[in-house]
């Protein structure tokens, strides 16, 4: 039986406010609360709430046959908690049906997978904890920021305790191979991979509302029949897209909600089922391994990481961020940890992209240069705060050993104290004994 695997990405960054040179050292709050609230409220109203309702209806009316997977970034969850708590409630309702799976990712939708293994693992752990605390489930399948994947990352993901990961089925990687099978990583054969079916995913995410498309209008009937026409041995069709496709990229008037609602019925007619990523990893057998020496993603025609790290500005900003990772790891200040997370969101780098000058990129800034200047000013202030805790005059290794020494000394003092207490007790006991004599 053929199955469809639906996965939706949900992410919102904490956008930065206009942060000037004079704010450096004076102002340690970096976020544009007004626009963050405005954007999350707007998207919740247009997309998250009606889309969740639609999916809940679909699960119920299909008799539990319809299934979807979500990955919600930690920063998105936090903003929902603050500005749109009703969205969290509706996700809880979805989670209760058991037909919804939550995937693990880096907490702030970061680019840590391209930089630092420890940081990467740390952010995954944070995200797992957040998901567990809200929905009571621990994610078993991993999904990296914007489906970024490479051989190195597959190794890291496996070491972080995952058996399955979902990623992009880029043409330059797959070649003649079909994404409609289960694969494994070349370097880590125990990590199984689900690859996005570009054509079918983009039929919905990009072309659904395109009047110029020769297949317009796309109906559920037609779409399912295309899937049914794929060779019978191809078992799984992976439809991965941004959740905002429902209601935000394609407005409700385009009929996107009705399109989704009709999917389970036509799928049932053609005997096509729905499957969750974790089920697919258990049920299906991998047919081959794929090798990806250079990172790929699901963004742009190139399907690489050039949208975030393509130009000089982005590389500079990312390098400066990487340079302080070890320092920040030593910090225990909660506000520093929090800002550290928020500043890592890949979106900040995306705004600096010069690939689509003059349009295409959604950005709160007028141009990439402004995005860069603003981010660097904020980062400069952040670095100052980290340095205030641990001055740069001490090398990392030295600092680390000093910190361990302090910690060890603390432990030693404690154990010695215990010993001392023991002797004191003994002494009193012997004194008492002596007294008796």
């Amino acid at each position, binding site marked *: 039986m053929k199955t469809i695997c639906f996965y939706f990405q949900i992410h919102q960054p904490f956008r930065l406010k206009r942060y000037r040179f004079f704010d450096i050292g004076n102002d340690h709050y970096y976020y544009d609360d007004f626009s963050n609230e405005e954007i999350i409220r707007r998207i919740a109203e247009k997309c998250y709430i009606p889309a969740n309702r639609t999916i809940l209806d679909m699960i119920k009316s299909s008799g539990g046959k319809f299934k979807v997977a979500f990955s919600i970034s930690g920063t998105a969850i936090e903003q929902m908690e603050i500005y749109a708590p009703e969205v969290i409630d509706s996700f809880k309702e979805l989670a209760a049906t058991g037909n919804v799976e939550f995937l693990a990712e880096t907490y702030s939708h970061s680019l840590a997978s391209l930089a630092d293994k420890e940081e990467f693992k740390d952010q995954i752990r944070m995200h797992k904890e957040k998901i567990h605390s809200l929905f009571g489930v621990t994610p078993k399948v991993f999904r990296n920021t914007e489906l970024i994947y490479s051989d190195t990352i597959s190794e890291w993901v496996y070491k972080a305790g995952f058996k399955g990961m979902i990623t992009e089925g880029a043409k330059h990687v797959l070649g003649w191979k079909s994404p409609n099978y289960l694969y494994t990583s070349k370097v880590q054969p125990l990590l199984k991979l689900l690859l996005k079916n570009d054509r079918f995913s983009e039929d919905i995410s990009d072309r659904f509302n395109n009047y110029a498309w020769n297949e317009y209008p796309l109906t559920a009937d037609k779409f399912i029949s295309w899937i049914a026409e794929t060779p019978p041995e191809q078992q799984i069709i992976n439809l991965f897209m941004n959740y905002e496709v429902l209601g935000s990229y394609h407005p409700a008037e385009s009929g996107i909600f009705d399109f989704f609602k009709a999917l389970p019925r036509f799928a049932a007619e053609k005997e096509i089922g729905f499957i969750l990523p974790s089920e697919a990893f258990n049920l299906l057998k991998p047919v081959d391994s794929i090798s990806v020496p250079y990172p790929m993603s699901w963004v742009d025609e190139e399907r690489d990481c050039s949208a975030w790290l393509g130009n000089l500005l982005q590389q500079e900003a990312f390098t400066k961020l990487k340079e302080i990772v070890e320092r920040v790891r030593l910090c225990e200040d909660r506000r520093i940890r929090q800002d550290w997370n928020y500043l890592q969101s890949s979106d900040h780098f995306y705004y600096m992209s010069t690939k689509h000058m003059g349009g295409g990129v959604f950005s709160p800034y007028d141009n990439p*240069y402004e995005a860069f200047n603003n981010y660097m000013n904020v980062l400069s202030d952040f670095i100052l705060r980290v340095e205030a805790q641990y001055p740069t005059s001490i090398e990392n290794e030295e600092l680390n050993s000093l910190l361990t020494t302090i910690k060890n000394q603390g432990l030693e003092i404690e154990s010695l104290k215990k010993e001392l207490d023991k002797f004191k007790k003994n002494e009193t006991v012997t004194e008492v004994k002596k007294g008796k004599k």
Partner: protein
Amino acid sequence: MKALMFGWEFPPHILGGLGTASYGLTRGMALQPDMDITFVIPKPWGDEDQSFLKIVGACNTPIVWRDVDYNYVKNRLGEKMSPEEYYKLRDNIYADFSYRGVNDLGCIEFSGRYPDNLLEEINNYSIVAGVIARAESFDVIHAHDWLTYPAGIHAKQISGKPMVIHVHATDYDRSRGNVNPEVYAIEKNGMDFADHIITVSNLTRNTVIEKYHQDPSKVTTVHNAVEPLSQDIVSIQDKRGVKDKVVTFLGRITMQKGPEYFVEAAAKVLEKADNVRFVMAGSGDMMNQMVRLAASRNISDRFHFTGFMKGKQVYEVLKSSDVYVMPSVSEPFGISPLEAMQCGVPSIISKQSGCAEILDYAVKVDYWDIEAMADAIYGIITYPAMYQFLKEEGKKEVDNIKWEYAGQKVRRIYDQVMNK
């Protein structure tokens, strides 16, 4: 002695150094008891200081007869011009300009800035000058910068009075040598017609003599000066939030100002010192290029851009600075280092700037010599004695550069051309 001056900018609405210089000079000249100045600008806003001169707006001067009643004119022009003045100018319309686009008062609209159709605006300005020159009585014409030369020539031809032109900049400075032929033609024409040419520095004087082929005896240098700081500027506090030293570049980020040498020098300083930040304040067509350059030198966490600064913001930046750098490739005068020194900020200026001729207590380097520039920056931020010395002596020096003296020099030139 009555002077009719043509200018393009006047504070508080200024776009560059021209407005500041026009204000300072006229103020300095007004200290002479028998001096009477009428200052024409394209578009007054009504909030200009008119206590020491009379401002006439070209955009309020009729060139086409319109039958409008007193109260209507009063309403429309408000503070900018009195109805009497309007009627006086209206009586001097000299030709039929109704084919040009004019408004309900018979006036041409001006942007008062540097728009894309600048040449057309310059031409309109000289049409208006014809009306004003007929209506006003004056002894001498004084035109500030090339934009107003055609107006000055027009006024001279009508009145037969001598014309002095004031060269604040030439196109050779703005373009690093690749002059715009149209601009050059206007500049050359203005200089040829002038009875005397005032330049703001010897550097500019040489350009005028060599590139515009003027008779040296006709060209005199009158260096610019600075207005003393007002009390509310003196009281601005250092607002910086960082403990680091701050090195500032302030001005338009364009080819003329040599911003790339500042970035390169910053990279060199940051190799040796880590207690310093660099600020590039201002905007311009090379800004994005500079952002990239700083990023490629890996100094973006210590090199900051502020965007366009105006009015008080300029002084806020200066007050928070330890060093001011002006690496201009070719600067006719350059008033901003003087302002920095007034604020007690040690300055490093390029030898290719006019103000280098009159400043002794500023560090002078060739604009291209980034190593010398880096060396000077490093010295000032590292050795307190050098910082203190330049701060105190520089302030003393610049406090003695007064517009009053510059005004007296201009007056001597007026006397000279009138006695010819």
